[in-house]
């Protein structure tokens, strides 16, 4: 299964969902396919899931989608007990697990290339609907459920080790610009002021 193919399936389904993304190739690929203002691609390992939990808690009427990677999640496993205990029903987490630190250019194996099973870890932390998918059809089925149902889902997507993102032009929008775009979109769609203060 190829991560880019998964993204190509997901992107047309994005309407008013909020999408929080992590780092590396997935940020480049998702940003290339989707210019939606509801994207918050934080460009940092170990932060996307936490931000997604926070957004889901304060905006319970909005579907929040988190795009994680094996490396990023392994860096922030402390999120999983909190996720299991809080159980935000409006949150869907997709972990694109290629079993390597592909950004290193030497494709150093991550722990999931060995004995570590992230879906099992999530289940043991209380995330009941945590599963692993290994082919595109299974991904489509789980993604459809995750988008339609109001229940926490955690889908580990075993994907190929690809380097296609290196052929995609990197975004020029910097992180503050990206953040402002996201927040102004939320202010508009939620009908409330988020960034306080006045000039």
């Amino acid at each position, binding site marked *: 299964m190829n991560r880019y193919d998964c993204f190509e399936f997901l992107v047309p389904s994005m309407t008013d969902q909020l999408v929080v993304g992590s780092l590396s190739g997935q940020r480049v690929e998702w940003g290339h396919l989707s210019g939606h203002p509801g994207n918050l691609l934080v460009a940092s390992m170990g932060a996307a899931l936490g931000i997604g939990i*926070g957004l889901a808690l304060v905006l319970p009427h909005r579907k929040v989608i988190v795009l994680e990677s094996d490396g990023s999640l392994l860096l922030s496993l402390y999120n999983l007990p909190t996720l299991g205990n809080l159980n935000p029903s409006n949150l869907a987490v997709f972990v694109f697990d290629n079993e390597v630190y592909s950004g290193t250019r030497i494709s150093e194996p991550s722990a999931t290339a060995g004995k570590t099973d992230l879906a099992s870890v999530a289940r043991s932390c209380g995330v009941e609907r945590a599963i692993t998918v290994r082919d595109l059809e299974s991904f489509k089925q789980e993604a459809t459920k995750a988008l339609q149902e109001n229940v926490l889902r955690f889908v580990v997507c075993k994907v190929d080790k690809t380097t296609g993102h290196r052929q995609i032009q990197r975004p020029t929008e910097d992180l503050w610009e990206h*953040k402002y775009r996201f927040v102004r979109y939320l202010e508009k769609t939620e009908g409330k002021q988020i960034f306080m203060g006045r000039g």
Partner: protein
Amino acid sequence: MEAELAARIVGGLKEAGISFVSYLPETRLSEIVPLFREDPSFMVVPVANESEAISISAGASLGGRPAAVYMEGSGVYVGSYNLLVLGKRLGVPMLLIVAYYGSVLDTRNSFLYAMPGIHLIPILKSLDIQHEVFENGASLETKIKGAVKMMHAIKQPVALLFTGEFTI
């Protein structure tokens, strides 16, 4: 900490508009936790790690609830990477409520706490995080309000460090 000071901290935060608190419990300011929980205007989220608290409060802040993170001074060390990449690089406003353990006026100071206490403000300075030290309750609510106004103005974290009377 006297109950009155705990109530004033929580009341000051509420008055300043804070409505979301993530936290990892510690000793010195722990009396504020039940007060947060008793007040429905606060959404309160316990976590396992201060880095996590910072990322969850960042999400809450960007989602429209002015957010705080309550932690021991050690949490600044644990959370420093997320303070850098979310607080500074992405620019997310949040208030850090920090028990300033190991400081000169920490009444529980010992060889356990002094070293991390000594390095706490240098760490905040290296991250260019604005901070205010509270030794007693003088102007407490005014300073909290000012700190919240500052975090909104610069869209970055601002830290409140509590020592002295707050550590009794």
